[in-house]
Every structure is written in structure tokens, then in C-alpha cells.
């Protein structure tokens, strides 16, 4: 079983739709959880950072962490064509308090005008 599982999609939605992106993980040692957005041939850009369980909202983006279920989500409200990108979940630390990030494979999202 991989440490982090993420549905690679692709996901295609109309403009204005609510988008839900999800990851599951197996390592209960993870303490902080991130969502990155990556445009084609660019580096990942940090969208949301959450420490431990709970919800965090930033504009149109909401991140949820459920440590009991080992499940994290990113919701995008009123999606825009500019949101079209690959979304990567990442989490850490893992074994022995290491700070390396473990990423999902990424979900490719297309928002159609």
C-alpha cells in the first residue's frame, strides 16, 4: 500500500462548479498536510497548509483533514478556468519525525468556460 493515494483523474468540470479533491494516507505519523497547485511545466505552488485535524478556509479554497479516517480534502468553490492545473496533496513528517514531504500522484483538473 502506498503511503499516499490520490485519484489522478482527469477531472473536468464547468466553470462555477464546486470541485472536491481527495487523498488518503496510511502513515498515522503525518502531522501536517498541504495542497499544491502545479501548472504545466512549472513548480508546485503552495495553496493550503494545515497542521493536524480540522478545516481551513482561504477565499474559494477549503482544506479538510480527518486524521481518524486518514483522509484529506480540498474544495474549490466557484471554480474558474484559471484553476485548471494539477493538484497535489502532500504530507509530513513521516518516520522518525523526518521533514520530507510525501506526495500523491496529483489530480489533473480542467475547468471549462
Amino acid at each position, binding site marked *: 500500500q502506498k503511503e*499516499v493515494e*490520490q485519484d*489522478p483523474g482527469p477531472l473536468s468540470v464547468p466553470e462555477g462548479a464546486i470541485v472536491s479533491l481527495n487523498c488518503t494516507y496510511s502513515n498515522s505519523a503525518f*502531522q*501536517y498536510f*498541504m495542497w*499544491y497547485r502545479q501548472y504545466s*511545466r*512549472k*513548480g*508546485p*505552488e*503552495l495553496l493550503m*497548509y494545515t*497542521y493536524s485535524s480540522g478545516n481551513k478556509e482561504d477565499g474559494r479554497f477549503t482544506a479538510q483533514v480527518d486524521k481518524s479516517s486518514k483522509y484529506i480534502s480540498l474544495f474549490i468553490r466557484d471554480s474558474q478556468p484559471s484553476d485548471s492545473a494539477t493538484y*497535489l496533496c*502532500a504530507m509530513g*513528517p513521516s518516520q522518525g519525525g*523526518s*521533514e*520530507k*514531504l*510525501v*506526495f*500523491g*500522484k*496529483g489530480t489533473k483538473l480542467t475547468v471549462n468556460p
Partner: protein
Amino acid sequence: DAGVTQSPTHLIKTRGQQVTLRCSPKSGHDTVSWYQQALGQGPQFIFQYYEEEERQRGNFPDRFSGHQFPNYSSELNVNALLLGDSALYLCASSFGNPPSGYTFGSGTRLTVV
């Protein structure tokens, strides 16, 4: 405020050659991590440098080595290049424990022919 800067942006090398990639961290960051991202995959952790020492290493062979300089910039060296080393190499910088987030550069796209 400059973010993470990586050079070069693109590189083509022949099998068996050696390559050096460079990274300047975001201002105020003292920790540099390197990741390899194959096409369609999430980034994979190579190693992390802090205070000019390798603090942690992922599951990569010894052909991959690095260095961190007193100004916190870093280099990634890969010897005896294989076709499978073709990927986007990402540098991420951070500060603090736990870090408040990792800032990624745009990456160096390495093609091995």
C-alpha cells in the same frame, strides 16, 4: 521578495554523463530539499540539506549527491546518467521546525538521451 530560483531551466545530457543543478532558496529560508518528479507522477524526495549537511535522504542511489553552501544555496549532482533520470528536478526551501510550508522553484527539466 525573490522565491526559489533554479538553474538551468532545461538541460539535455547523454547517458553516462554527469550533471549539476543549482538552487537558491527563498530569502529567510535555511533548509533546502530536492525532489524528482517524473512525468505524470508526484515529486519524490531525494534529500534535504540543513547547515551544510545532508540531514535526510530518500530512496535514491549514491549517484545522486548534493551540497549546501554557507549562503544556503544548494547543488544537486547526478553521476553516470541513465535514461530513467529524465525528470523535472525541483528544489524546495523552508524554515522552522515544523516548517510553515515549503516553497518550490520552477524546476530544472533534465532530458537524458
